[in-house]
C-alpha cells in the first residue's frame, strides 16, 4: 500500500495494530502519526494512552509492557517506538510472538528515520519489514514533488502559493523534507494574515531580499539586456543566493520562453499560452514578449549553454559566479 492510500485508510478510521514507518521525510512521518492519533483519540485526550518509546534506551520489555497494558481511556492505545534500528536480532526475537499476533487493543508503530548513510544500509530496513507492514516516507524528488510538498506544508498553515513563488521555492529549497518544512514555516509566519504566498515573499524570506530579485534578473536575461543582468546577478549572489539556484531559475525562464515560442509558431494566442503556462497574466505577457525575440533554433543553443554551465558548476573547480557571468555574456550573442 502506498503512503497516500495509508493516509486515506487511517482517515477512514482503519488503524492497523502494527506499522513500520521509515524514510527520510520526517515531517510526513510525523503527519501520519498525528493522523493515527487523531483517528484513535478524536476527543484529543491522549495523554494517558500514547506512549513514546526510544529503542536506543528502551528494550523489548518496555515495548511489550506498553502494548500489553490495557488503555486507561481509549478503546485502542498508541505506542510509538522511535529509532527502531537500535533493536538487535535477539530483541526482535523477544518481540516476535507479539508481532506475529499483535493485540487489537493497541496500535504499535516502529519509526526509522534514515539519513544518507542509512539509505545504503538496506539490510536494516529489510529486517524491520519482516515484522510489520512497511511504509516508505521519502524526501520529495524533482521540481514536481518538491512543489507538491511545499503546497501540502503550506496548506497546514492555511496558505496557498502562487506558481511563480512555487517555482522559486523549487529552485531554492532542495530535496530535504525537514529543511523544506522549516523554510515553509518561516514563509507562513512571514505572511501573517495573508493567505497567499507570493514570489516577493520567497525572495524576502528565503533569499534575504537581495539587491534585485531573481525574477528581475531572469526577465533581463530573457530580454537580452546584458548590463542590468550582470548588475542584478552581482546583487543576488552577494545576498547569499547559491549560483545553482540562479542557474535553475534561468533554465526555468528559458523553458517558459521555449514553450511560448513553440506555441507562437503554431499560431496560438496569448490566452492559450497563458492557460498552458499557468502563470499570472502579466508574467505571461512578459514571457511572450521575450519569446518573440528568441527564434526556436537559437533556443536550442541556449539550452546547450545552460547545460554546459550546469555541468561546469557541478563537475569542475570553476566558481559558480564566473560560470554564471560567462553564461550571461554568451546569451545575448545567441539572441536574434
Amino acid at each position, binding site marked *: 500500500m502506498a503512503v497516500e492510500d495509508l493516509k486515506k485508510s487511517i482517515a477512514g478510521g482503519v488503524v492497523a495494530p502494527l506499522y513500520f514507518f521509515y524514510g527520510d521525510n520526517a515531517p510526513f512521518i510525523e503527519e501520519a502519526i498525528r493522523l493515527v492519533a487523531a483517528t484513535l483519540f478524536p476527543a484529543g485526550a491522549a*495523554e*494517558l494512552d500514547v506512549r513514546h518509546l526510544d529503542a536506543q534506551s528502551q528494550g523489548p520489555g518496555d515495548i511489550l*509492557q506498553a502494548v500489553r*497494558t*490495557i488503555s*486507561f*481511556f481509549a478503546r485502542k492505545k498508541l505506542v510509538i517506538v522511535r529509532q527502531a534500528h537500535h533493536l538487535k536480532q535477539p530483541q526482535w526475537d*523477544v518481540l516476535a510472538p507479539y508481532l506475529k499476533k499483535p*493485540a487489537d487493543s493497541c496500535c504499535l508503530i516502529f519509526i526509522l528515520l534514515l539519513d544518507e548513510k542509512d539509505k545504503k544500509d538496506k539490510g536494516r530496513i529489510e529486517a524491520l519489514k519482516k515484522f510489520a507492514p512497511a511504509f516508505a516516507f521519502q524526501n520529495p524528488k524533482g521540481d514536481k514533488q518538491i512543489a507538491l510538498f511545499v503546497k501540502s506544508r503550506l496548506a497546514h498553515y492555511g496558505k496557498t502559493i502562487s506558481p511563480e513563488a512555487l517555482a522559486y521555492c523549487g529552485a531554492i529549497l532542495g530535496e530535504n523534507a525537514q529543511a523544506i518544512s522549516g523554510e515553509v514555516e518561516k514563509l507562513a509566519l512571514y505572511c501573517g494574515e495573508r493567505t497567499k504566498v507570493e514570489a516577493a515573499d520567497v525572495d524576502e524570506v528565503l533569499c534575504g531580499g537581495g539587491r534585485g530579485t531573481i525574477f528581475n534578473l531572469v526577465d533581463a536575461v530573457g530580454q537580452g539586456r546584458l548590463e542590468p543582468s550582470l548588475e542584478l546577478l552581482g546583487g543576488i549572489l552577494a545576498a547569499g543566493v547559491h549560483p545553482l539556484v540562479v542557474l535553475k531559475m534561468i533554465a526555468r525562464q528559458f523553458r517558459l520562453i521555449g514553450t511560448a515560442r513553440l506555441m507562437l509558431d503554431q499560431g496560438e494566442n496569448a490566452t492559450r499560452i497563458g492557460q498552458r503556462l499557468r502563470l499570472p497574466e502579466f508574467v505571461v505577457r512578459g514571457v511572450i514578449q521575450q519569446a518573440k525575440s528568441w527564434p526556436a533554433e537559437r533556443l536550442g543553443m541556449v539550452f546547450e549553454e545552460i547545460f554546459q554551465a550546469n555541468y561546469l558548476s557541478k563537475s569542475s573547480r570553476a566558481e559558480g559566479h564566473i560560470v554564471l557571468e560567462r553564461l550571461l555574456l554568451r546569451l545575448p550573442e545567441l539572441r536574434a
Partner: protein
Amino acid sequence: MKITATKKTLSTALSRIQGIVEKSSIKPIISNALIKAGNEGISVSATNLQIGMRATYKEVKVEKEGTISVNARKLFEIVKELPEGEITLTEKENYWIEITCGKDLKFNIIGLPPEDFPVFIKEEKKEFVEWSTEKIIEMIYLTSFSISRDEANPSINGAFIENIEGNKTRMVSTDGYRLSIADEELERNKLLDEGLLIPQKAVLELNKILIEKKEEKSLFVMATSNSLLIKISEVEFSIRLIDKKFPDYKVIVPGEGYKKIEAYIEKDKLRSALKRMSIISNENNRPVFFSFKKKEVEIFTEDSELGNVKEIIELKDSTSVDFKFCINCSYLLDIINVLEEDIIVEFNAEEENKPIIVKSVTRKNIKYIIMPMLMD
C-alpha cells in the same frame, strides 16, 4: 561583600541548591548561586527558571554587605575540599571572588554580574495558607513514585494537587500505567479548586527540603495561577507550574456502583513473593499472573529465556468469586513499599481488563489503580 562562615554552614547552604542549578546551560547565570550579605546574615538563592530556592543563614559574620553570583557547583566542590573551620568569601574587582581558609589557602574564582540573576520569587500580597508539613511529606511519599518521567508528555510529568469535597486536598500522579491518589485534610486554598500541576523535579526537590525540615510543624503556601511559593522556616521555594491540563483521572476511578471482589493480603507475605517473582519478570517486564481462588492466591510468572516461578499465598479472607489478572509486579511492589499496612486488592467481578484497585486496609484516604496487562 565580605563574609565569614563555617564550612558546615556553607556546605549546607550550597548542598541544598545542587539539585536545582543547571549543570550546563546556554544561560550561565542559572548555573550560579546568588549570595546576598545583609545585616541579618546571608541569603543563598538558585534557580533553573522552573524551580527556585532562597534560604537565609544568620550564623554568618558579615564584614561588608553586598551581593555576588558564583557557579554553585564549583563553589560547593571547593567548600567540600577545604579543611574544617572558617571560610571567608570576599568580592573583588570585575566579579572575582576570593575564597580563603586559614592563612595559607586561597582560591580566586570568577563570578558573574549579580544583577543578571533572574528574579524568581516575586513578593505578592496574596495570603499564605498554613499546611501540615507532615501531611505534605506523606502525600508526596505516597504518590511521587508513579509520576511519569516522560518530559515529552508534560500533562502527566508532575503531581496534580486539587481541592476535593469534604474539605480535603488530593494529590494524584500517573505514568499512564498506574495512578496514585492520596487525600489529606488541609487548609483550603481557593486556587486548588481548579487543581495545580507541580513538575516532577520540583516535587522531588521540595520533598528533600521538607524531609530536612520535618521538625517544622507547618509550611506556608501561596498559589497563583502559574506558580507556587512555599515557605518553611528560613527556606523559600518557588515552583513554576506545568501549564497543561492533568487528565480527567476521575473517569478512571471506579465508583461504588459495580460488583467488585476484594481480597485481603498480608503485606509482608506478598512483598516477599513479589520480590521472588521480579527475579524472573524484571528482565523483560514480563507480566505476573495472579489467580485468586477462595482462600489463596497463586502468583506465577515466566520468561522464555529464564524460566518460571510459582508461589501460593494464603489470604486472610476467602474471596467470594475466583478471579485472575496479570500486571507488572513492580507496580504492586512500589505500592507495598510505601504502605505500612496490609492491602486489599479490588477487582471488577463482571468485566475483564478493568483497573485493579489497591487499597490500604486501615487508611481510607489512599487509593492506587494499576492497569492490567493482556493475558498471553
